[in-house]
């Protein structure tokens, strides 16, 4: 007899990810991912000036502000065929990298570490022993018994107060948790320290973007940063030095703490290399352009079908024809009026809400498809595409991480094991260490270019008299993001954003193929179905971001997931 479990974080404002799973013999036998809010914000953009679109798209989501701004200016630039000066490319790249480093640190420590770390075991840890253990893992100077003791005291204070606060909803003592108390303490102390380094990364975004959370320095055709080595208010060598120092600290945290922690967790939960694979089609777009025309990149793009790494195909440009022509959105199982799968430039968003029905329509998320196939996007897709293509930077960092897991865990790790829940975490850490290296490289490129006397930051866009179409892509922290714009008479005629979480959280399609979240949950063992920690582990490994759009405060305090067992 199968059980049905629904996990639905209840807030009065709908707009969250809901997961339904059927459980047979303590393993998932069927799964549905759905979003409970209508995503039709694009309709607001029709009729507006394309040069203003980025200000609006930056408000799609409060966590991914920068990425939607960037994809939007790139879409309009693609439509208008305007090149972007080198300084502007590099300034944008640095913003994107700093934002991604911030995002990856936040994801691991604030949002998913506690799926693996049992906070309530920490009072049983021994800070001295933890220090010895830490010495074997990393040269991080803050791995000291004093730091560990302070972190432990914090947990003890919370545990003894009876007011668990932020820990109120954890599945503590769950049978799927099995780190030693010392490892739990080690990871938890980094959870506290992470706050300082995620802030430093955000400060880099703030210096270059002139403000966070909403950057102000973008413009179609470049950036609005004035570069003047003699002016205190412009981008000058002092500011660049300030960025260099901030990045140094962030890079050290990534390499000596974040990557090490992910490798250690992976080494101690090796069973999770066999769980959570799902859709093995991967998609990534090239990013971090190194020239004005956008023909060479520091992050490679391409796609992989059915896990066949040898058969990977690269994308040459950020708006590669193969990518542009292959994307459609299917609404067979989404709450929109039925119709054929449509290309985003032709996309329509006519809602038809019929209520959750797993056999018919059940989500507000459309199902994006690439040549008709569901695709997994995110750091794993990016790392696999780079690895498969022999991209030196990817190979270097992936190999280092794999060796670390092998050394700590005494297990053999093959690239094939990356098709898993742990693989997604490992790939995100690998990507972070790649980006950490690239942050310093791009800062140097920018400094050198300015030192040569090039202060250009902007090319004036020109609107053609006929209708034009453009796509702007960005390999965002959560994966491939694309904004699609149609411009007529200097106004937006159509606008669609195909966001990473739409690819991953996609519902089934007309051929009944499950989306990546759904497929990844199949066969997941659940130790206690009424406490579906294992489902959360896999879903969190994707780093979903569904509806940051709406954050209304609910004073009734009912912000708790409803886990229903039927």
């Amino acid at each position: 007899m199968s059980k049905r479990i629904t996990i639905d974080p209840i807030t009065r404002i709908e707009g969250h990810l809901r997961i339904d799973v059927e459980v047979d013999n303590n393993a998932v036998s069927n799964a549905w991912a759905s979003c409970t809010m209508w995503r039709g914000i694009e309709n607001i953009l029709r009729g507006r000036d394309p040069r203003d679109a980025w200000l609006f798209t930056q408000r799609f989501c409060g966590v991914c502000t920068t990425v939607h701004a960037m994809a939007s200016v790139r879409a309009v630039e693609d439509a208008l065929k305007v090149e972007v000066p080198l300084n502007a490319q590099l300034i944008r790249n640095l913003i994107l990298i700093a934002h991604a480093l911030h995002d990856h640190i936040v994801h691991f420590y604030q949002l998913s570490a506690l799926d693996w770390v049992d906070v309530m075991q920490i009072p049983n840890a021994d800070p001295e022993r933890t220090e010895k253990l830490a010495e074997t893992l990393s040269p991080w100077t803050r791995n000291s018994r004093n730091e560990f003791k302070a972190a432990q005291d914090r947990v003890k204070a919370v545990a003894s107060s009876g007011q668990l606060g932020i820990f109120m909803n954890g599945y503590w003592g769950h049978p799927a948790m099995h780190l030693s108390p010392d490892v739990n303490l080690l990871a938890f102390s980094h959870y506290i320290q992470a706050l300082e380094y995620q802030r430093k990364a955000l400060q880099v975004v703030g210096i270059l973007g002139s403000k966070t959370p909403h950057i102000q320095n973008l413009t179609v055709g470049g950036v609005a940063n004035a570069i003047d080595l003699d002016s205190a208010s412009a981008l000058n060598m002092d500011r660049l030095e300030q960025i260099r120092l901030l990045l140094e600290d962030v890079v050290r945290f990534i390499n000596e703490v974040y990557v090490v922690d992910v490798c250690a967790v992976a080494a101690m939960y090796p069973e999770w290399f066999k769980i959570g694979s799902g859709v093995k089609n991967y998609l990534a777009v090239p990013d971090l352009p190194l020239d004005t025309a956008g023909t060479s990149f520091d992050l490679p793009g391409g796609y992989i079908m059915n896990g066949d790494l040898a058969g990977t195909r690269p994308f040459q440009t950020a708006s590669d024809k193969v990518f542009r022509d292959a994307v459609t959105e299917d609404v067979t199982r989404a709450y929109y009026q039925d119709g054929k799968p449509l290309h985003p430039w032709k996309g329509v968003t006519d809602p038809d809400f019929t209520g959750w029905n797993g056999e018919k329509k059940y989500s507000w998320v459309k199902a994006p498809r690439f040549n008709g196939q569901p695709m997994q996007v995110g750091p794993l897709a990016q790392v696999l595409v780079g690895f498969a293509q022999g991209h030196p930077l990817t190979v270097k960092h992936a190999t280092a991480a794999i060796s670390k897991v092998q050394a700590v865990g005494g297990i053999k790790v093959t690239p094939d094991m990356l098709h898993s829940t742990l693989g997604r975490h490992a790939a995100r850490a690998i990507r972070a260490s790649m980006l950490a290296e690239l942050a310093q490289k791009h800062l140097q490129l920018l400094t050198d270019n300015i030192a040569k006397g090039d202060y250009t930051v902007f090319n004036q866009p020109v609107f053609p008299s006929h209708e034009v179409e453009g796509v702007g892509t960005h390999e965002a922290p959560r994966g491939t993001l694309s904004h699609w714009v149609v411009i007529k008479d200097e106004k937006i005629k159509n606008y669609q954003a195909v966001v990473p979480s739409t690819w991953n959280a996609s519902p089934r399609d007309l051929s009944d193929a499950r989306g990546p979240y759904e497929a990844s949950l199949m066969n997941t063992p659940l130790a206690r179905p009424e406490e579906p920690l294992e489902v959360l582990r896999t879903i969190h490994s994707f780093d979903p971001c569904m509806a940051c759009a709406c954050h209304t405060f609910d004073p009734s305090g009912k912000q708790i997931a409803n886990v229903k067992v039927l």
Partner: protein
Amino acid sequence: MKKLKVLIGGIGNVLLGDDGVGPYVAHLLNACYEFDSAVEIEDLGTPALDLIDRISGKDAVILIDSIDVEAKPGSVLPYRKADIMRLRPAVRMDPHAPALVDALLSAELFSVCPEEVLLVGIKAQSFEQGCSLSEPVQGALLETISVILKELDRLGVEYKVRECPAELDTWWSSESPLELSTC
């Protein structure tokens, strides 16, 4: 006396109707009043856990956000730190859903949560996609501002009315629901 470091932060999504009231009020305050340099006024959008960074190191924080509660649309309701701290955090199904409660609870764990927290909640009428505020929420703007100013008075923070209101930087909004001369 030491000057208090204060953050006044408008929270909400300006593309979702009344959810934009927090950012709107932040811009309105900036247009109509001059504050001491230790007072920061920010349109924070929907910052999720980044709110921890924003409030960290402040002595007092005043947040403005739309609320959903049994009340007449446009009702202005204050919540204090203790009211918020007793609420449950969200289960992090969607890891970016954690909002205000989670941010404050985390900030408390990290020992960076200000002592003085006031959330000025405005009961929304509609969260439909759109860039304008409903009539009842427009009608609540002046009351919201007066609640904020009273809190500043209580904290002993100085401010003064601008003789000539600055430009209202609510770029997303096509109309101006409030004549600046009235604030």
